[in-house]
């Protein structure tokens, strides 16, 4: 806060203990000579609240208060609070600094003033005090109204209005029959059929590969074992079965397998006994 701009009004700080009964009583029992104002620190809702109360003490319309006098009162209040070593919230001190600046600006000759002028700032402060004062009075008038539950009462034992909702259900024959059809369709036993596919079984592949291997001692490409002119799905099945058949024959020691490179052609040769 120390580095705050002199013209900036302090940011509000969280308000302290809220008490509708107003400023807290002096706990130490010490009373000031003129009034108890400076000992009632905890009761003010921030510096603006204190300023409003000080300006009310001028006993004139808020529009006619003397800003200079108000500044002096505020500053002397802060001084006295400090003399009593009361802990002052920072925003009271920042307001004091701002008011001190305002006072010096007000005392300067007009031509030396910056924009906005000190008069404008003073008027603005006055207007803010007026606005806060108006709201405070409005609050008091509001609270003093005849209020429900305190001054005015509603019927003590109303019978109450009850609305019973009654459903009238609607449907139609088609929906009924359709629903039954759907239940039947949903729960009817279903027969699943799997279409036959042309496959080469492992057994027939082993027979075929070993028979063909018996013809020669030369290396043969695996693909040469597949049935020629077969449709693609049968060819796929035959390739897989023939591969497994080749592995099986190699395991049984009846054939050897060679492959020169990864994904290269796989060759097969009979092992002569």
């Amino acid at each position, binding site marked *: 806060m120390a580095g705050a701009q002199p013209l900036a009004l302090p940011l509000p700080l969280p308000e302290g203990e809220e008490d509708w009964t107003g400023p807290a009583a002096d706990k130490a029992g010490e009373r000031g000579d003129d009034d108890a104002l400076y000992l009632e620190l905890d009761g003010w809702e921030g510096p603006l609240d204190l300023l409003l109360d000080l300006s009310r003490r001028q006993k004139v319309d808020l529009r006619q208060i003397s800003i200079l006098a108000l500044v002096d009162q505020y500053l002397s209040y802060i001084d006295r609070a400090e003399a009593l070593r009361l802990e002052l919230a920072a925003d009271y001190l920042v307001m004091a600094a701002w008011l001190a600046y305002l006072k010096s600006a007000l005392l300067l000759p007009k031509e030396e003033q910056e924009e906005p002028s000190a008069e404008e700032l003073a008027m603005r402060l006055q207007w803010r005090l007026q606005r806060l004062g108006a709201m405070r009075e409005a609050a008091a008038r509001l609270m003093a109204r005849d209020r429900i539950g305190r001054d005015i009462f509603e019927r003590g034992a109303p019978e109450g209005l009850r*609305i019973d909702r009654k459903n009238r259900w609607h449907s139609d024959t088609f929906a009924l029959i359709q629903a039954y059809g759907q239940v039947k369709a949903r729960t009817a036993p279903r027969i699943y059929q799997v279409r036959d596919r042309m496959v080469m079984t492992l057994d027939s592949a082993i027979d075929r590969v070993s028979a063909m291997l018996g013809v020669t001692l030369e290396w043969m490409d695996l693909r040469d074992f597949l049935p020629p002119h077969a449709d693609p799905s049968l060819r796929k099945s035959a390739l897989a079965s023939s591969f497994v058949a080749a592995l099986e024959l190699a395991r049984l020691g009846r054939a050897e397998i060679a492959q020169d490179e990864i994904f290269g052609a796989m060759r097969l040769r009979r092992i002569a006994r």
Partner: protein
Amino acid sequence: MDDLVRAVEATLFASEASMSVEALAAHLGGAEAADVRSALIELADHYRERGIRLVERGKLWHFETAPDMAHLLRREREQVRRLSRAATEVLAIIAYHEPVSRAEIESIRGVQTAKGTLDVLMEAGWIRMAGRREVPGRPVIYATTTEFLEHFGLASRRDLPGLDELRAAGLLDPIDEALEDAMHFESPDEGDSDCDAGAEADDDFISDDSPA
């Protein structure tokens, strides 16, 4: 208007309980009981023909709604609602298979049935409990009512189309359930969208029936 009469009127209005003449007199700062009594009589006379009455019951006085206005205190509001798909299915099964138990309905539908679904059909007046099946657990069995036939414009249950007719009408063709679900607007508040059997969190459902 007399101030005491106004005070009695306001006091009885704001009071949470009926009040005796004595209680009123005490409340009104020690008014004479006789004055309170005549105020009460004046008020009762004033309200004789109005929408509210001032009445005495066992020496206690209170305001109440005029008897011919009592219908205003409890109003019925009728709401037309369309039967949900789940309820329609259950109703159809009962109509085709009656009398059936709840377990049998569930066995035919292939899904559990929320308690609310049968309640809705009972509320609609379309099904009734038709006794108990004499098997272990003695489950309640349900049947349709005359109102059911009336609402659906059927002379008798025999008017319901048979399976052959349903098939001919294409109503037995398997349907895409996902599409069906997406297209179906089931009222959410009915509580019986029991396609997801989660609705069966309904604890008081007792499986009292072994499916046939």
